[in-house]
C-alpha cells in the first residue's frame, strides 16, 4: 500500500518535470485564424528608423489583410551572428536585412534564402536600376530587394571648417592632412574614427584602394582571390603615411562607431570632431546622437580625396546597398509582396526621410532634403562607377581578416605588407 502511494507520487513528479521541460521549448508562434505571420529583423534600434518600420508594418497590414508583420530590431554588430544562428536553427526570420555581396552568397549556397527573381515587380526594375539590383544577385538570380544606397565619403562640420579658416573642402590627400592640422589647432579632433568596431578603420583602406586600384582590378580580385596586384600594397602604404599625420581622435582604437555620444558619430554630433569617413546612413545616426536628437545643421559632405598616381577613376565611389531578403522557409507570396511594398515610391520616400539617407528607388530621390545627402546624391549620380564595400564584396572571412589587419596598422602593430598577407591567408583558408 505504501509502495503504491510512493510510486504514484514519483511518477506524477516525473511527468510534471517532463511537461515543464517540454513547455519551455515549445514554439508558441503559430498561424491562427488563417492569418500569415511575417517576422522582420532590421538593425534600427533607435529613433526615427525604428518608428519607420513600425509604421511600414501597419501600412502593409492594411494593404494585405490576413498578414501580420512582427518586428525585431537587432543591434547592428550582432546582426551577422544572430542571423547565422537563426537560419541554421530552422527558426529564421521571414524577412531579414541583407547587404548583398559575399555574405549573401554564403546564405544562397546553403539554400537558406528565397530566389525572388520571378517575384520582382516589373515597374521596380527600372526605378531601382540594374546596377543597384546587381548587388543582390548571385549567379544571375535576385535574392534580395535593395532599399537604400549608401555611398561613402567624408561628412564634415561646416562651422568647424570655417572656424579653422578652411574655405573649401579638400580634394587631395595632402590637402586633407593640412586641413586636419588646422582643425587640431582649434583643440578639436580632426577626424572621428570608431576603430574598436574595425570596419570604420578599414573603410579608410577601402577608399585608398578605390583611388589606387582600377575598377577591373577590384572586380578581378574577387575571382583571383589574392591581393597580389601592387595597387593593394600601395593603398596600404598611402594609408600608413596618412595615419602618421595623426588625423584621428584620441583613443580612436577604443571608440565605437555608432553607439552613444562617445562614439565616432557621437563626436561629430557633439562638435568634438570635424569629420568622419562613413556611409550615407551617417546623417541619420548623427541626428539621433545630437543633444536635441535633431539633424546637425552644419553637417556637409565631400567625396574622398584623390590620390596622386592612382589608377582609380576620379569621382568613383564606394558604398553599400542595404536591402531585405526572404528566408527559404518564408511564405513566398506574402514575403515577396512585402519586399515589393517597401521598394515602392511612397515607402521609399518615407524611408529616405526617416533614415536621412538615399533611397534605392530613383523615383523617391526627391525626398532627400538634407543638404549633405543632396551633395552625395549629385556625386552618386555622376560617379563613373560605384564599388561595394570590400568586406561585403569579398565575403565575411576575407573581410574580417582585412578589417583586422587595418586595425593592426592603425595600432602600429602591423604593416601594409601584413594587410596583403592577412587577406591572402584568409582566402587560402577559405
Amino acid at each position: 500500500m505504501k509502495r503504491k502511494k510512493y510510486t504514484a507520487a514519483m511518477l506524477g513528479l516525473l511527468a510534471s518535470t517532463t511537461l515543464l521541460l517540454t513547455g519551455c521549448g515549445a514554439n508558441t508562434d503559430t498561424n491562427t485564424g488563417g492569418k500569415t505571420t511575417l517576422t522582420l529583423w532590421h538593425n534600427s534600434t533607435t529613433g526615427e528608423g525604428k518608428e519607420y518600420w513600425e509604421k511600414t508594418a501597419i501600412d502593409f497590414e492594411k494593404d494585405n489583410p490576413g498578414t501580420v508583420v512582427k518586428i525585431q530590431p537587432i543591434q547592428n554588430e550582432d546582426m551577422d551572428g544572430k542571423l547565422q544562428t537563426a537560419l541554421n536553427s530552422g527558426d529564421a526570420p521571414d524577412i531579414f536585412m541583407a547587404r548583398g555581396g559575399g555574405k549573401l552568397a554564403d546564405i544562397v549556397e546553403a539554400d537558406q534564402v528565397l530566389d525572388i527573381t520571378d517575384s520582382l515587380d516589373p515597374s521596380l526594375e527600372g526605378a531601382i536600376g540594374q546596377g543597384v539590383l546587381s548587388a543582390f544577385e548571385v549567379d544571375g538570380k535576385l535574392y534580395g530587394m535593395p532599399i537604400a544606397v549608401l555611398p561613402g565619403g567624408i561628412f564634415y562640420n561646416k562651422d568647424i571648417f570655417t572656424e579653422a579658416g578652411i574655405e573649401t573642402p579638400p580634394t587631395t590627400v595632402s590637402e586633407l592632412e593640412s586641413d586636419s592640422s588646422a582643425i587640431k589647432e582649434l583643440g578639436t579632433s580632426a577626424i572621428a574614427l570608431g576603430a574598436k568596431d574595425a570596419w570604420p578603420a578599414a573603410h579608410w583602406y577601402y577608399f585608398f584602394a578605390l583611388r589606387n586600384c582600377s575598377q577591373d582590378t577590384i572586380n578581378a580580385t574577387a575571382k583571383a582571390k589574392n591581393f597580389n596586384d601592387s595597387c593593394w600594397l600601395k593603398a596600404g602604404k598611402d594609408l600608413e603615411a596618412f595615419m602618421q599625420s595623426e588625423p584621428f581622435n584620441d583613443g580612436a582604437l577604443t571608440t565605437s562607431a555608432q553607439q552613444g555620444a562617445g562614439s565616432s558619430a557621437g563626436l561629430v554630433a557633439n562638435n568634438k570632431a570635424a569629420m568622419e569617413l562613413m556611409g550615407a546612413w551617417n546623417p541619420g545616426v548623427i541626428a539621433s546622437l545630437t543633444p536635441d536628437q535633431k539633424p546637425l545643421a552644419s553637417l556637409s559632405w565631400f567625396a574622398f580625396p584623390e590620390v596622386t598616381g592612382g589608377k582609380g577613376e576620379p569621382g568613383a565611389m564606394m558604398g553599400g546597398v542595404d536591402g531585405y531578403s526572404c528566408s527559404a522557409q518564408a511564405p513566398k507570396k506574402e514575403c515577396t509582396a512585402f519586399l515589393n511594398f517597401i521598394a515602392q515610391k511612397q515607402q521609399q520616400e518615407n524611408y529616405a526621410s526617416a533614415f536621412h539617407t538615399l533611397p534605392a528607388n530613383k523615383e523617391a530621390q526627391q525626398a532627400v532634403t538634407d543638404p549633405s545627402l543632396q551633395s552625395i546624391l549629385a556625386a552618386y549620380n555622376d560617379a563613373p562607377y560605384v564599388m561595394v564595400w570590400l568586406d561585403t564584396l569579398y565575403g565575411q572571412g576575407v573581410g574580417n581578416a582585412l578589417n583586422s589587419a587595418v586595425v593592426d596598422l592603425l595600432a602600429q602593430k602591423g604593416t601594409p605588407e601584413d594587410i596583403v598577407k592577412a587577406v591572402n591567408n584568409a582566402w587560402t583558408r577559405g
Partner: protein
Amino acid sequence: MNTSPLTHALPRPRSSNWRQRLEILVFAAPAVVVFVSFVILPVIMAGYYGFFRWKGYGTPSDFVGLDNYFAIFQDSAFHEALIHNGTILILSLVLQGPLAIVLALLLNQKIRGRAVIRILIFVPYVISEVIVGIGWGLLLQTDGAINDFLDSVGLGALKADWLSDPQIAIWSLMVIISWKYIGFAVILFLAGLQSIPEELFEAAAIDGASYWQIQRNITLPLLGPTLRIWAFLSIIGSLQLFDLVYIIWGQYVSSTAGTSTMATYMVANGRDAGSYGFGSAVAVVIFIISLIIALTYQRFVLRRDLAGALTEGEK
C-alpha cells in the same frame, strides 16, 4: 520463531533502497538533462564541427580533418592570446591572493566599519561583467574621468592611454579583474577562517606565540585547502576570460592592445570571420587546455586535501 522474524525483516531494506534510488533519479533528472543539453552536447558538436571548413549556413560538408587545428597552432595571434591568458592567470594569483588574505584577516577582527568595508569589497563581485566593462571602459578612455581627474589635481603628466597602449593595457585589465573578483576570494577566505577552531589561537597565545607566528603556523596552514580551491577557480576563470575583454576592448583592439584571450580569439576568428568550423576547433582547444590544467591541478595540488580528509575519517 527465529525463522519468522528473519523472513519479515528481508523485504524492508530492499524496499527502502528501491525507493531511495527512485527519489534520487527523479530529483537529479532535471539537472542531468540541463547539464547534458547545455554542456555535454555542445562540446560534442564543437568537436564535430572542428573537423570541417564551415561558414555557418546549412550543414557542414567540407571535411578538412585536422587542418583547423594546424592553422590554430601556427597562428601567431593564437600564440599571443595564449600568452595573455597565461599572464592573466599568474597575475591574478599573485595580485589577488595576498591582498585577499590580508583583507580577510583584517575583516575577521572586530573593527569599526567592518560591515561597510565588507560590502564595498563584495559588491563588485555581484555586478554583471558587462556593466563592469562598460563602466571601467568609460573611466579609462583617453578623455575619460580618470584622465580628467589627474589633470584637475595637477598630475596631468600621469595621464595615459590606459586601454590601447600595449605597455599599459594588460595592467588596466588586471586592476579591473582584481577589483571585480577580490570580493569572491575574501568571502571564501573569511569562511575558511571561521572554520578554524578558536582554541588553537588561544593555546598558541598562552604559549607566547606572536601574531605573525600564529598566522604563519596556524592560520595559513589551516586555510590551505580554501586557498587551493580559490586558486583553482581563479585559474579556470583566467583561462576562459571573455566578457570584460570583449566589452572594453572588443575582439580587434584586444589583439593590438595585448589583452586578447583564447576566447576573444575564438570569436574574432570564428563567428566574426564566418569560420564556424575553425571557431569550434578553437573552442575544443580551450576546453582541452582547461581540462589538462584542471586535472593536473587536482592530481598534484588538491589531492593532499582529500588525503587529509581520509586521515580525519580514520581517526
